[in-house]
Structures are given as structure tokens and as C-alpha cells.
């Protein structure tokens, strides 16, 4: 059984700050972090490996070379290998071009299942996994909240998709692409003390377009089918704000505010 974990390193959005005077985004540090839902996907794969020790788990990520230490870290946590798809020619790729690049890589791979997060923290549009699935003609399900490991041997995986109104249980024929939703309880395991400084260089591959061989017209800005015309800071609200302290007077002000606007039961 081979599981590929499609992972994205995203900018740490909580450390992004908007500077209204200079009208720019300030990245207090250039830190990358593993997209939280992707971490859930990798953690789910690692949990399965407990029951199926022969399972091979490989991380696949497209991004800058700065992502490499994060992939090494994942190998130290128990993944078998990692591939970083990194090429300056891929810069500026939109989701169309990104899907084409990832799709081309996956075509060269043998796998039973691709695990990924449903959304990313930065884009949040959940496009790439479904687009890659369509390119490869594979089933795709997003928003997965649970997976029945015992069904793995049957060639059909039973998964739960948690929605607002219902929990749906599906059987998915393998190979397939599965997108997980965030689950605060599903965490990546810690790195064992003796593995903290383990040299894992021989388990990391870095490849680019020389290996994947996509046409120049398919990648980067030229290969993109959407174009960003302009980027502007969202207009911030400026209201006449009334400020009060957290004291009896402040609480009375809030109470009157609610009362005069009809929010209190008669």
C-alpha cells in the first residue's frame, strides 16, 4: 500500500500584518508552516501505518526550496520519503498550472491513495485536489472527517464526510484523492529524541521541470488561465466607535445599547 501525501507549506498567516501607511503586507518573518489540514492528512496516514507496517508514505510538495526542512521534519516523524517539486520556472503558476504540474508528477507515480487537506490556509479555495483528480480521472472527496482503516484492504475505502446538516458515509474506489478537514485532535506525532538530528538527506528528492518536462506554455504565468490584475488592501471599516471599560458603567452601557435596539426579550 502506497499513500502519497500532497502537502503545501503556507506562509504563517497569523504573523502577516498589514501596514496601512505603506500599503503593504508585512511578513514579520518569512516563516513557512505546514498547512493545518495537510498536517491532518499526513497524521492520518501515519496512524494507518501503525496498523499496516508495510505501508509506504511519501510526501509530495510543490513550493520554494525553503520547504525542504519541513519535509525532512516529516520524514523524521515517520514518513518514508519526500519529494519537493521546486523550480523557478513554476513561479506565478495559478491553480490551473499548479494542477497540471502536480498531475504530471502523479502520472509518474504508483500509488493507492493521495491524502491531502481540503483547504489551504492561504488560498482557501480547495481547487487543486479536485482539479488534479479530474485531470487524472480519479475519484475525489473533500471534507473527510474520519476514515475506516479496516476497509483499506478491500480496495474501497470507507470515509465519513462531516457537513453542517449531516454526516455522510461514502465508499471510494482506489486509487483516489482524499481531502481531509481540520481536526484539532489529529496531530502529527512528535519526533523521537534520537531522531531529532537524524540525517534524512537520502530520503528527500528535489525535482523540477527538467524531470517533469512540461511545456513552457503550461507553467508559470504563461501557463496560467487566470490573471491577477490588481491587488489592493481591503478597505478597513471606520465607524464612530464608542469605547467603554470593563466595569459596572461599561456593562450598563452595553445593556442600554442592547435594550434601546430591541435585543432584549420584552
Amino acid at each position, binding site marked *: 500500500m502506497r499513500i502519497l501525501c500532497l502537502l503545501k507549506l503556507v506562509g504563517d*498567516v497569523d504573523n502577516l500584518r498589514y501596514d496601512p501607511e505603506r500599503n503593504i503586507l508585512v511578513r514579520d518573518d518569512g516563516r513557512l508552516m505546514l498547512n493545518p489540514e495537510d498536517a491532518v492528512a499526513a497524521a492520518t496516514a501515519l496512524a494507518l501505518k501503525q496498523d499496516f507496517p508495510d505501508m509506504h508514505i511519501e510526501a509530495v510538495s510543490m513550493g520554494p526550496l525553503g520547504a525542504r526542512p519541513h519535509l525532512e521534519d516529516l520524514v523524521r516523524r515517520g514518513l518514508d520519503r519526500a519529494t519537493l517539486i521546486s523550480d523557478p520556472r513554476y513561479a506565478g503558476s495559478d491553480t490551473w498550472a499548479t494542477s497540471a504540474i502536480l498531475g504530471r508528477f502523479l502520472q509518474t507515480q504508483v500509488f493507492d491513495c493521495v491524502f491531502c487537506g481540503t483547504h489551504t490556509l492561504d488560498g482557501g479555495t480547495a481547487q487543486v485536489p479536485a482539479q488534479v483528480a479530474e485531470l487524472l480521472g480519479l475519484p*475525489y472527496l473533500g471534507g473527510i472527517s474520519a476514515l475506516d482503516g479496516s476497509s483499506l484492504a478491500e480496495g474501497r475505502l470507507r470515509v465519513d464526510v462531516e457537513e453542517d446538516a449531516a454526516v455522510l458515509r461514502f465508499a471510494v474506489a482506489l486509487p483516489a484523492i482524499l481531502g481531509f478537514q481540520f481536526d484539532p485532535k489529529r496531530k502529527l506525532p512528535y519526533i523521537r529524541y534520537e531522531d531529532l538530528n537524524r540525517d534524512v538527506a537520502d530520503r528527500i528528492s528535489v525535482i523540477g521541470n527538467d524531470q517533469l518536462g512540461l511545456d513552457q506554455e503550461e507553467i508559470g504565468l504563461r501557463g496560467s488561465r487566470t490573471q491577477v490584475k490588481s491587488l489592493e488592501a481591503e478597505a478597513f471599516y471606520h465607524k464612530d466607535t464608542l469605547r467603554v471599560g470593563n466595569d459596572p458603567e*461599561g456593562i450598563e452601557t452595553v445593556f442600554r445599547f442592547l435594550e434601546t435596539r430591541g435585543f432584549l426579550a420584552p
Partner: protein
Amino acid sequence: MKRVLIYIDEAAVPDSVDLLEAARRMYGSGRFQSYALALGGDCGDAVGLFDVVVQPRAGTVPDYDAAAIAYYADSLHRRFGFDAVLVPATPFGRTVAPRTAIRLGAGLVADVTEVRSQGDEVLMVRPAFSGRMLATVTCRGDGPVMMSVRPRTFFYREREARTTELIALDLDYPGDSGIRLLDRRDRNGGKDIRDSAVLVAGGGGALRDFSQLEQLARALRGMVAASRKAVDHGAAPRSVQVGQSGKNVGPRLYFAVGISGSSQHAAGLKNADCIIAVNTDRQAPICSMADLVVEGDSRSFLTGLLTRLDAHKQDNQGG
């Protein structure tokens, strides 16, 4: 005359029909023909508001099969040649849209919150960098303009009546999506925070205060909502998350308790009538959006306000 295809998500029919407003803003009233692709039997107001409603024969495709829907959209496009294809960015629409985009060879602009046209070009606005910026995006290439639209950002108020032509799509999906629905368990208490007039929302500064938030919500006949941080910490379920990765809400009153108001969160709040913020940090972005700011700790504020509301209730009952 432009032609616009709108996918009707069975789980969100009114939100899907509202995408007619996005089409109207792109091309202008009466200057486009509207086509609805509806799988379910019930397509709400679509009949009467669209020019054409296309439905596959009953039972030919399960309503959770996004690959089949993409196939149908593609066949319709070959037949009618759409200028634009719109999909609501519902949980299921978020799978339908990318699959359809690949089929149509179209670049997909996702989660659109604003549209307009400039000459021949359709400009779409969407949040970027976790909602900190607004990106104006266009589609390139030969395919139709393709977008998924954030539910409840457009409201089709014009409701111009149409004589709807019904087309039964007599087409079998040749593939096998490989996905079977085994079981569906409905969750109780499924009221949607988007339908509540009052929301009492907690964030990273109120992670331990959700039982009090619940009491306050009850007192104000509203519902509890949460920021991404609170949901990620397991303090509240994802279904009540407000913001770019959650829901767009438009309550009459939004109580933001211990929420800093990142633009990710603010993106979901634009339609709120009035906002009360409770925060220890007077510089928190939420404070500049609020009508009323309480500077202080959420726990003691909640205790104080609940006591005050309780006294009010006693007074009312007493006299």
C-alpha cells in the same frame, strides 16, 4: 446575447438562484440568457426566473457525483457555448467547480465576492492572502469565464419573471465516479448561523468561555459563532465558523468576544448591522469595525453582563 450557465446545488437552491445577480452585474439586465443545471427534482424558484432549466433524467446521476456534473456542464457548453459558468462555492460546489473548469479548459476564479465588466472583460474580485487583500482577477484563454461565488454575497432582488424552457438532458455519464454513498446521518440542531439575527461569537481570547457565550446567546435569542482560532482549538464546531474559511454572516447584532478581527474573519462580517467587540487589546482590528468596544477581559465581562441581564429579567417578572 450572452449565455450564462449556473449550477444549482440541491443543498443550497436559493443561494444558487441568487447567482443570477452576479450574472446581471456582469452583463446587465436583459442582456444575457440564463441556463440552470439542476440535478434534483426541486429547483426552487429557478423555474420562473431562468430562461432555461436543464435537468438530467431522474436517477441517472447521484447528486453527490461531481465528476458526472462536470461532464454534463461540458456537454451543455458544447451545445450552447456559454460565455460564463457560475457555481456556488458551497461545500459540494467547491468540488463541482474545479472539475468543471478542467473539463472546459477554463481558469477558475474561486470564492468570488464581486464582479463587474470592463469593456469585453469580466473582472472578478476575490479575497487573497487569507482575506488580507482583495485580488481583481480575469480569466485567460478560450474557455468561458468560470467562477465559484461565495454564497450570500449576491442577492437577486430584481427577480424578473421568465417563461422557463425545461430541457430534459438525455445523456448518460459514461464513466464511473468510483464514489458510493453508503449512509447519511442527519445531525440535529442544524440551524444555520447565517439565519440568526444575533450572533455571539468567541475567539482566541475566549476559548474557555463558550458556556457563558452560550448563555448570552440564549438571553439574546441568538446563536453562538466562532473565529477560526476558536474552531482550530476545538472550542466550537466548524459549522459555526465565521470568516473567509467559514461563513459569511449578516446578523443585526454581532458580539465579538476575544476576537482580534483578522481580515480573514472580517471578510465574513461585512453585512453585520452592528458589532460589539470585547477585547483586552484596544488596537485589535475588530475595535475599528465595532460600534461599541468594551476594553477588558472576556470572562469578567460576560459574568457582569449576564448578571445584569438576569437582574433585568427578574425586574420584568417581578413587576
